[in-house]
């Protein structure tokens, strides 16, 4: 849907030209960004940096990170075809979950060294991390990172694959399929992502790595890979968005789905759809959000919500919808929904294996994060697993729920400035007991 501007109102509004900034606006901003602002100086208005405002900003930022992909109208039947044709579960269990029991932190978080969490394999044997490496070329001046693997219960951290094959400097997402299949998508920035497939060896390293053909952009457009998931054995579903590089107002993004068959390399464009967002359960079933707020799962309508972002738990038991007033969990079997406690700033979610609960990361302030366990049936918080200063970029749960592993960037203090180098990001594990 594309709206048209009301020309008369537009002229009226344009008649009120915005003033220039106050004289020291940019100087003050530079000082604040550099961590050395002097408050209340000359004509600068009094700074009002309430925690509430910080939370709101954090929420906006998280929502951007979560917003995912807005799909244009047309061809919705194709998604329905995908959703109603689920394949067998690939890695994690899809069995009905047990009632949620609170997980309790056991001792203090333990450092596992520097790096960023990329993922934990479905067996719970290996932790994959992105860490600085001189062998990685990096991108655009960023310190190069490579993908490493380490036994989750301790042991040597090893390079997964040559850094020239898998560069983990920018974003990197690792997906596990059935039978040892893995897929990654990496990118220096949103527009230069690549899709790499391979197989997991017994020692956690990857073999048979191969860069796959990725969907291409039309002339004058840039294409971004939004998500890649195993839809079934050997088949990936790829969500992309594209936009015109001239960045002209009114050039809305176009969203498409593609399917990639690993064995043949065949890339099938499934086209744009009437959906505004999709999320993929572990077994390939799709949760979808339509522009009118209708949320469906596996082709079945769950209801209409004032939602703008959705997640689905890996087992497909719940769809979580981010609304303007918080997060709602919808039971996909009963269609019952419940508001989750204090998750207005949801950042990411991991379902607790074998339990009707999930661990969420959420911003709780200006530079503070916490990990909380929420009962998806009642919406109540069961436990706070970690809370501290800094930014959690990613985290993973051991499949037996005996620990949560997360990376923590230092808080952006005035002394440290805003620069967070790769080596400064540290991985911690908080052991848990049921």
């Amino acid at each position, binding site marked *: 849907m594309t709206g048209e501007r009301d020309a008369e109102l537009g002229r009226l509004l344009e008649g009120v030209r915005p003033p220039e900034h106050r004289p020291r606006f940019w100087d003050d901003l530079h000082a604040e960004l550099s961590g050395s602002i002097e408050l209340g100086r000359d004509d600068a208005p009094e700074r*009002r940096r309430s925690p509430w405002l*910080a939370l709101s900003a954090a929420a906006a930022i998280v*929502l951007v990170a979560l917003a995912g992909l807005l799909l244009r109208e047309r061809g919705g039947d194709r998604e329905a075809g995908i959703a109603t044709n689920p394949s067998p579960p690939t890695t994690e269990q899809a069995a009905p979950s047990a009632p949620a029991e609170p997980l309790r932190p056991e001792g203090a978080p333990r450092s596992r060294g520097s790096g960023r969490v990329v993922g934990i394999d479905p067996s719970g044997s290996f932790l994959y991390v992105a860490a600085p490496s001189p062998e990685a070329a990096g991108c655009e001046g960023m310190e190069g990172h490579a993908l490493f693997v380490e036994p989750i219960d301790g042991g040597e951290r090893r390079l997964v694959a040559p850094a020239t094959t898998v560069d983990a400097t920018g974003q990197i997402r690792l997906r596990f399929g059935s039978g040892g299949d893995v897929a990654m998508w990496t990118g*220096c920035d949103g527009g230069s992502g690549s899709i790499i497939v391979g197989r997991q060896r017994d020692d956690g390293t990857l073999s048979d790595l191969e860069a796959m053909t990725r969907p291409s952009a039309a002339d004058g457009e840039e294409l971004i890979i939004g998500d890649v998931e195993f839809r079934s054995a050997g088949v990936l579903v790829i969500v992309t968005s594209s936009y015109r590089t001239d960045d002209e107002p009114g050039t809305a993004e176009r969203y498409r789905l593609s399917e990639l068959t690993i064995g043949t390399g065949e890339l099938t464009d499934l086209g744009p759809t009437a959906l505004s967002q999709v999320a993929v359960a572990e077994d390939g079933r799709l949760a979808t959000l339509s522009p009118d707020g209708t949320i469906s799962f596996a082709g079945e309508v769950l209801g209409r919500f004032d939602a703008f972002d959705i997640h689905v738990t890996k087992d497909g038991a719940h769809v979580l919808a981010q609304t303007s007033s918080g997060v709602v969990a919808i039971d996909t079997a009963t269609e019952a929904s419940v508001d989750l406690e204090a998750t207005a700033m949801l950042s990411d979610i991991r379902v607790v294996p074998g339990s009707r609960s999930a661990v969420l990361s959420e911003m709780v302030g200006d530079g503070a994060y916490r990990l909380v366990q929420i009962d998806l049936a009642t919406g109540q918080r069961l436990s706070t697993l970690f809370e501290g200063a800094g930014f959690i970029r990613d985290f993973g749960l051991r499949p037996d729920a005996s620990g949560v592993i997360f990376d923590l*960037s230092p808080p952006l203090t005035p002394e440290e400035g805003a620069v967070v180098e790769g080596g400064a990001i540290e991985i911690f594990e908080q052991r848990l007991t049921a």
Partner: protein
Amino acid sequence: MRSRRAPSEPDLVDRARQGDVDAFEVLLRRHDDPMRALAHRMLGSRAAMDDALQDAYVRAFRSVAGFRGDARFSTWLHRIVATTCIDHLRRSGRRAEDELGEEPRVVGGRQDPAGDAAVGRVDLRRALNRLDVDQLAVLLLVDGEGLSYDEVAAILGIANGTVSSRVTRARLVMRTLLLDGRESS
């Protein structure tokens, strides 16, 4: 891997992600005009505009490391600015009446150079103040910034249908107030 080149927006975003303040400020200055327009129209005074934009820009910088490029940088920044302005409005109530006189008054789509308070004159700001915050944000983005419903939906994190309904209601309120003003003048 791409070769080095003159700083493009993706280059600057990458550098900003690594904490490069200068690169981030270049990005901000490139996009500042529409952000000023949005903030000023929403908040109604330069002081409020500057306050909100400083908040928004600092928040953006603190979070740019997590910007994945799933949306255009301008959309991402618009969203932070819009959300910050909404926060300011909700926190402070509405625009202060005593700030309404800062801008030229408008009659029938044209600025009135005299700017006096003639009987029946329609004050655009006063009309905007009659909108609720959500309607105001949508109206300014669609009719003020000329963005599509898709873009506004992405910026505000709402469905396209919600954008449509809010802008329709907002236009109705504005047209009623503007028309009333013209008839009484």
